[in-house]
């Protein structure tokens, strides 16, 4: 089977998962204990307002009809609106989503770029000081909660040294045209060097902290995976053919060791999506993590609903991308 048809098959397989997610997200509002409408109005005893909101949310109609109209709205790009901000949810998302995505992307890149070489290096230097040293550091990183790391980083780099800003995505003076929503890219498009530096200064600390736990875990897992591969017969078989050690390590062993690592990375991404709620709040990063906390606090259920949907879809997309990545690394996947 070719790669193209494999991708199509995986996309088709995603449809039920996406539908399942929408059902769960839709039911969210019904699963809230008590009367959601009353909670949203928070004590305003005006019966007219109550009925109005209930009708607007469609809660007076049969469940199936509600779901179908929810889906129809979604298809039109209508996710309802925020009572708290008095804005359509999509508008809030349009601001928060790129902010979260940019931060997560960068954190993922940091994690992959640092953890894999570190794990491979530790495996190759097995049982030396360098191996033990790097594994102890990663154990420490893993054990320390990321919000504490975040606060310490702010105190040190923003407070003591004053090198990096403590919060936000950009300084108030920066004004650039948004194209991708990623400030580090939009600054380049705008040709604004100051804005570019500013964006990097803001994103660096939260991204590193967000990546920290995952990097630590992933480095350890990469090391273990690499050691496992190095024990395999085919490594001996390759050496017995006269293939030089360097080639055996970097061409054969690393590629095989990466197969399970790809799964670890997906799992780490899932962890990051929960981590981001904390990190965004620590750094006042104007993304979905901050938004979800505000929305829960102000009982803005439609916004919460939409955010959960977006988080779930992000997760699904990453699983999909992982499977595609797999089929590149491991030929056994495409043919089973």
């Amino acid at each position, binding site marked *: 089977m070719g790669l193209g048809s494999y991708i199509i098959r995986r996309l088709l397989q995603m449809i039920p998962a996406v539908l399942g997610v929408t059902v769960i997200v839709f039911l969210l509002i019904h699963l809230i204990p008590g009367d959601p409408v009353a909670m949203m109005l928070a004590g305003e005893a005006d019966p007219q307002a109550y009925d109005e909101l209930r009708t607007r949310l469609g809660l007076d109609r049969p469940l199936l009809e509600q779901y179908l109209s929810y889906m129809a709205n979604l298809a039109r790009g209508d996710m309802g609106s925020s009572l708290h901000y008095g804005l359509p949810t999509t508008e809030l998302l349009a601001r928060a989503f790129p902010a979260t995505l940019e931060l997560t992307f960068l954190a993922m890149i940091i994690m992959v770029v640092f953890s894999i070489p570190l794990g491979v290096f530790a495996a190759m230097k*097995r*049982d030396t000081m360098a191996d033990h040293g790097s594994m102890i550091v990663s154990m420490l990183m893993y054990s320390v909660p990321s919000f504490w790391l975040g606060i310490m980083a702010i105190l040190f780099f923003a407070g003591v040294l004053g090198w990096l800003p403590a919060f936000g995505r950009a300084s108030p003076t920066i004004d650039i045209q948004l194209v991708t929503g990623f400030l580090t890219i939009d600054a380049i498009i705008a040709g604004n060097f100051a804005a570019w530096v500013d964006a990097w200064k803001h994103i660096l600390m939260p991204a590193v902290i967000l990546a920290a736990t995952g990097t630590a875990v992933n480095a350890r897992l990469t090391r273990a995976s690499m050691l496992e591969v*190095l024990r*395999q*017969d*085919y*490594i*001996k*078989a*390759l*050496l*017995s*053919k*006269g*293939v*030089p*050690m360097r080639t055996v390590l970097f061409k*054969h062993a690393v*590629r*095989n060791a990466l*197969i399970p690592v790809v799964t670890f990375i997906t799992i780490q991404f899932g962890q990051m999506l929960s981590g981001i709620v904390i990190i965004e709040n620590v750094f006042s990063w104007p993304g979905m993590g901050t938004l979800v906390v505000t929305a829960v606090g102000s009982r803005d259920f439609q916004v919460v609903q939409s955010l959960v949907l977006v988080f779930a879809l992000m997760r699904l997309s990453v699983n999909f991308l992982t499977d595609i990545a797999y089929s590149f*690394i*491991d*030929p*056994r996947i495409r*043919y089973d």
Partner: protein
Amino acid sequence: MAEKLIKVEDLKTQFTTKRGLVKAVDGISFEIKKGERVGLVGESGCGKSVTALSLMKLVPAAHNERVFGKIIFKGQDLVPMKDSQLKEIRGKQMSMIFQDPMTSLDPVFTIGSQIMEALGIHQGLKGKESKKRAIELLALVNIPSSEMVVDYYPHQLSGGMRQRAMIAMALSCEPELLIADEPTTALDVSIQAQIIKLVRELSANKGTALLWITHDLGIVAHLCEKIIVMYAGKLVEMADTMTLFENPMHPYTQALLRLAPKLERGKGRMPPIPGTVPNLIDMPPGCRFADRCPKCMDVCSQEPQWMEVEPGHWVSCFLYSKDGKN
């Protein structure tokens, strides 16, 4: 034929482990002549694989090993050699096939690219030329539609086919010594016979010497000219096949042969001998077979000598030494 190819002298391979020093191979000496087919038999865990890996200098992959003694291959001692020198020997002059064909091919590269890798290293073949040679080699080991199989990944082939591919790879540069570590144990009986026949023919055609490691006396009886019997890290007896079957001297060999008729009925596994193989950690001095030996004597608590009791017939047992009885 009489020229010697490899001479192993007092080879010792030891592993440092948490539980103690494992003397997996403990002072073995033998030689293989050019084109000679030699069988190495012994019970599970007696150090056969470690011997094979030591000859290829592949044990260092384990990080915790030490190798002593001499491995003189074509006049050069392999023991002190560095990887850079060894890669001229491995695959080119001496190669190896492994027990489990399911795990001895890299799963993420095609069969062809794995054969071509060796061709590139040792013969400088590249591109189309190299692929053509890989296809020829696969055909040589009787793989049908080898032009297609060359682009297959290991998981697309059966165990027997993979083992053929391994053989093609091992023989690609026409080595002078092929070490086969139980290459048929993982395969079913009819495939076993085909593989043995194939290796036998190929080795006869090219004059490749063979060290065939197995549990199975039946296989070596048919395939090999000389048999070495190993027990708990040491050699106990070595003789040409006829002599060993007609006049086994060591009580261990005798026990193996007494139980050998069971081979015909069973699946060809080594039949059980009462007692168990001793632990290779902190081995007490003396003959290692002593506590299972029906002919054990007082003197057996000392180390028996490895000596040639008649021309070409070596044994390590006090029954045959001058100071022993009988």
